[in-house]
């Protein structure tokens, strides 16, 4: 019997750990390259499972100017090796975020990426205005939300709309702005370039992929919203391609790779594709401690890759 599976290599994630390999995203140092992905991390839930300060960063749930109630239930369905979601960005709003989540996370020692949602440009501006003076370390603009300023399409699918939104947001804050891109476009390098040319300090990708499941007993959609966003292992190759292709076009912009990461090996694959860091989403739904486990696995994998590790620590990338 050969026993080389990574899961059998006992990593005790609860033991104090000296992180060996840091990264830098838009000038901000992360103690390791693994963060959580927005919408799959709530401090109030995760704090019972591990010390959130151990992560490279935490990207918090998309934050809107006022509380949003999101979509009706059911909000989720399962795909092969994936999860579909249609939360509809339910969140208690930016004021609650500033009073509750953010101070708690900062007190807990987390590096906080505040994810921003909006249904129109003004929504984004209101949230960014309030976050500008906050303790958030970085802002992540989720441009996958349906946007009424731009006719219902998401800003992320329209480079002109994205440019104009960035022109409004960029002057509002000195904090690093990460633009989080949707894969539901013909060519992701187009909005990527628009975002960067209009002031983005970094990009993160991918958000969820448009998908749907039906119940074959009823013949009807499982999710009340009908369609949802696919995430989890199934989307890994889509995310890798997005990062790699964007890196080819934009050699210098920091990129956070997201999509289907459930192991240190897959996080590493994103780094080889040209990412400076990664965020872990759905894997945390299936096991609360997944992001920390992945961070620890990656820390060990980087030991034998000093060239890559050195590049990351310096704020550079493999490609």
């Amino acid at each position: 019997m050969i026993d080389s599976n990574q899961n059998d290599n006992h990593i005790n994630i609860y033991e104090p750990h000296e992180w060996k390999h840091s990264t830098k995203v838009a000038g901000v140092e992360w103690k390791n390259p693994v963060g959580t992905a927005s919408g799959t991390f709530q401090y109030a839930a995760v704090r019972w499972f591990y010390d959130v300060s151990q992560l490279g960063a935490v990207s918090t749930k998309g934050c809107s100017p006022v509380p949003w109630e999101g979509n009706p239930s059911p909000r989720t369905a399962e795909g092969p090796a994936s999860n579909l979601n249609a939360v509809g960005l339910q969140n208690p709003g930016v004021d609650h975020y500033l009073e509750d989540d953010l101070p708690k996370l900062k007190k807990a020692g987390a590096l906080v990426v505040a994810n921003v949602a909006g249904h129109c440009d003004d929504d984004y501006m209101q949230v960014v205005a309030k976050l500008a003076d906050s303790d958030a370390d970085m802002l992540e603009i989720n441009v996958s939300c349906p946007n009424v300023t731009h006719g219902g399409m998401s800003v992320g699918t329209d480079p002109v709309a994205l440019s104009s939104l960035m022109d409004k947001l960029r002057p509002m804050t000195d904090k690093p702005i990460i633009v989080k891109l949707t894969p539901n476009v013909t060519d992701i390098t187009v909005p990527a370039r628009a975002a960067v040319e209009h002031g983005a300090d970094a990009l993160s990708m991918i958000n969820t992929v448009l998908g749907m499941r039906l119940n074959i007993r009823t013949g009807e959609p499982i999710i009340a919203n009908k369609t949802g966003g696919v995430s989890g292992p199934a989307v890994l190759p889509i995310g890798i391609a997005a990062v790699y292709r964007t890196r080819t076009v934009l050699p210098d912009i920091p990129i956070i790779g997201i999509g289907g990461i459930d192991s240190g090996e897959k996080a590493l694959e994103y780094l080889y594709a040209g990412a400076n860091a990664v965020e872990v989403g759905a894997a945390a739904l299936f096991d609360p401690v997944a992001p920390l486990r992945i961070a620890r696995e990656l820390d060990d994998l980087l030991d034998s890759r000093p060239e890559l590790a050195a590049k990351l620590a310096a704020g550079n990338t493999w490609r």
Partner: protein
Amino acid sequence: MTTFTPTYDVVAEAQAAGYFPPRHSVEITGVRELTDRVMRLTFRDPFIASHAKPAQFVNLFTHDDFMLMPRPFGVSEVEGDEVSVIFAVIGHGTEQLARLEPGDTVDVLGPLGRGFNLKEDANYILVGGGLGVPPLIYAAQKLAENDASFATAVFGYRNDHFAEEYVSRYADWSWSIDDAEGNVVDLLNKLEQGDDLKAYDRKPVILSCGPLPMMKAVAAWSAERDIPAQLSMEQRMGCGYGTCVLCTVDTVDGRLKVCSGGPVFTREQLGWGE
């Protein structure tokens, strides 16, 4: 290759560090088919056995990497360090769980959610329907430990009364009905008429779990009588521990998470039967 299951004792490690155990692997110790497509599965888990409260649930995970999402089931009994759940085979996940055999392992996360509030000494009327019955068995089991409270089980089944054997171990009184005979509200009315819902001077409190229409009817029934009602809800879940907001139910306080705000909500919270 997402097997999250470590082969070492991650529960002990987590607890030693002051944290709640993550997903971990447990051994199946018993499997029984109670009736057509209804299984009782028992696994060894000292942590869950000693912490679970009635109406709390556990996430079970299949070994099939196509099905990564949690399958939540209410704890239905605890004996020593063994935990039982009772579930219906309704889809591919429960089909796979139904194939487990003693000695196999399964991944579990829990106990999760907020259980029933059983602090008050009362006559708890456990109104269950179909696969809402299992958590109420556990409520009866816990109530049996408290001499000052009573448990009256009022269960409705589609046909076979598959859980009577278990609930009768613990409940002070146990009644049941099936679709051919009527529904649980019919049964409640009949019992009320026969004075069978009274337990000495104890205040009645309804604990209910079952299909939505049944629970709404039970809520209305209890509202008419001004009996407090705690209702355990079901919703498709993404994580089961409060991190994804995929499992909401509409309440008077807005959309709340079933997995961490519930699964138990009061009739007032749901705004039902008023």
